[in-house]
């Protein structure tokens, strides 16, 4: 049987070549991707992870628009040197509402997975306008245009789009009630799509992230996003060995 099934036979028969090539390629996909949807321990069961508020979500869009991910990763790997510098290693659960996730693969700048709370809002604003003014050795470009007004008119549509990917932003009262149970009332209000624009403005006004409360700028949104990165999970309430068992 094998005598007949030779290399030559495959190479000279387009049908066999297509079928066997597809088989060889799909093995890689099946082995590497399919199990993630089946395994029980892919996403850790931790408290605190929530969707982004409208302002944070717009900040995330700006993060993607400006290509921050080309130089900054958001993935602290489980190595000692990384944990000492950046903090606790990233969990799969922490990016479960990220579509697409911002893990990145290039670190010209430092990892940002846990940058939230590390610097003050004014530092971020100063640094984004002109990085070299606070970090002389930095090669990061200036982003002065972030101080321009934020276009918040389409934030509800953006949330509706994310809703279709599985982010639990609420449209109906029933969905809102469900979010209240899962995330608490304050957060649930922020995730209610009909109020998205009002919520965005009120968070920007209350936070005053860019130090200028006369208007909502793109800087407000981006800094709000950066300040929440990696802060949702309270690791003091998690036993480290429980996460070990999750792999």
């Amino acid at each position, binding site marked *: 049987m094998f005598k007949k099934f030779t290399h030559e036979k495959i190479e*000279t028969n387009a049908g066999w070549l297509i079928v066997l090539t597809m088989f060889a390629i799909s093995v890689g996909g099946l*082995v590497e991707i399919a199990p993630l949807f089946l395994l029980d321990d892919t996403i850790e069961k931790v408290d605190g992870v929530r969707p982004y508020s409208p302002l944070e979500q717009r900040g995330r869009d700006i993060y993607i628009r400006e290509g921050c991910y080309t130089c900054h990763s958001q993935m602290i790997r*489980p190595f000692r040197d990384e944990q000492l510098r950046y903090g606790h290693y990233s969990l799969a659960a922490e990016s479960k509402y990220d579509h697409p996730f911002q893990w990145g693969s290039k670190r010209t700048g430092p990892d940002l997975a846990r940058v939230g709370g590390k610097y003050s809002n004014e*530092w971020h604003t100063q640094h984004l306008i002109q990085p070299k003014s606070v970090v002389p050795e930095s090669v990061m470009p200036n982003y002065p245009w972030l101080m321009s007004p934020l276009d918040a008119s389409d934030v509800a549509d953006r949330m509706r789009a994310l809703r279709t990917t599985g982010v639990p932003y609420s449209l109906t009262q029933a969905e809102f009630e469900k979010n209240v149970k899962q995330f608490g009332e304050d957060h649930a209000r922020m995730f209610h799509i009909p109020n998205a624009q009002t919520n965005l403005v009120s968070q920007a006004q209350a936070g005053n992230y860019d*130090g200028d409360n006369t208007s909502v700028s793109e800087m407000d949104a981006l800094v709000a996003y950066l300040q929440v990165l990696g802060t949702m999970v309270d690791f*003091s309430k998690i*036993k480290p060995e429980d996460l070990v068992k999750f*792999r």
Partner: protein
Amino acid sequence: MAENTVQTTGHTWDETLQEYNNPLPNWWIYGLYVTIAFAIVYWVIYPSWPVGKDHLRGIGTVTYTNSAGQPETNGWNTRAKLLKEMQDGDARQKPYFDKIAAMPVSQVVKDPELNSFVLSAGKALFSENCAACHQAGGQGKVGLYPNLADDDWNYGGSVAEIEATLVGGRRGYMPAFGEALEKSQIEAISSYVLGLSGHAVDKVKAAEGNALFHSNTGACYYCHGADAKGRKEFGAPNLTDKVWQWANVPAAADMNGKIAAVRNVVTAGLNKGVMPAWGGENARLNPGQIKLLSIYVHQLGGGK
């Protein structure tokens, strides 16, 4: 290679074009078999194939200390390995941190071994966590972040006070006087404040400013103190020295510029000067690291 000794694929394109059908070299084909054998050994030792809702766990193990303080053994995985490495690393540094925690600071700095540990570990911690604002040498930025290398401290410069600043963070605040006071009054206060640090100012204006500073109209004395030397419980800086944190007086070319620098701060107030908290809930640094860093900062130049 002679034309007739090598087998061809049997195809002929464009009348004469043929392709040799050479066998793979032996070193290559045996290399392939070796990697297959290696993979099988690897699958046995390390976590590998998914099986149902679980996966093969491998036979490698890692033993670490669990949060109850008991040794615990888990199948080898990167998280278990990391936990063990973190614990081993902490254990190597523990004798130093224990000594530093137990000793008064004055003795820590006298012990050459301990002090060199403070300096090297402190430099790494400072570079990663503090230098973004306070700059590599702690020199700060006028108008943005305080200088840590001088002996002028907003919130106190003892090790204990530096430690408190690190643990809880700080939030600088000065009210805006632009609406409460007349322009001429702010001008007078600015002249008085500059006169405190030895600048040649209009004596009449300064006298008016002096009165306002200590009156309940200006009420500057409430935070900056009757002697204008600052009150560290509010983070209100000393105004009688030549160190300027918010108003960039030294950079101004002439007296008008210097007065304008101070006037702007008094008019608009300050709602910045936020130092993040490094201790407490969800702490970025543990108490040992914070004490070490406090001693490091204390030694940068002007600890009290």
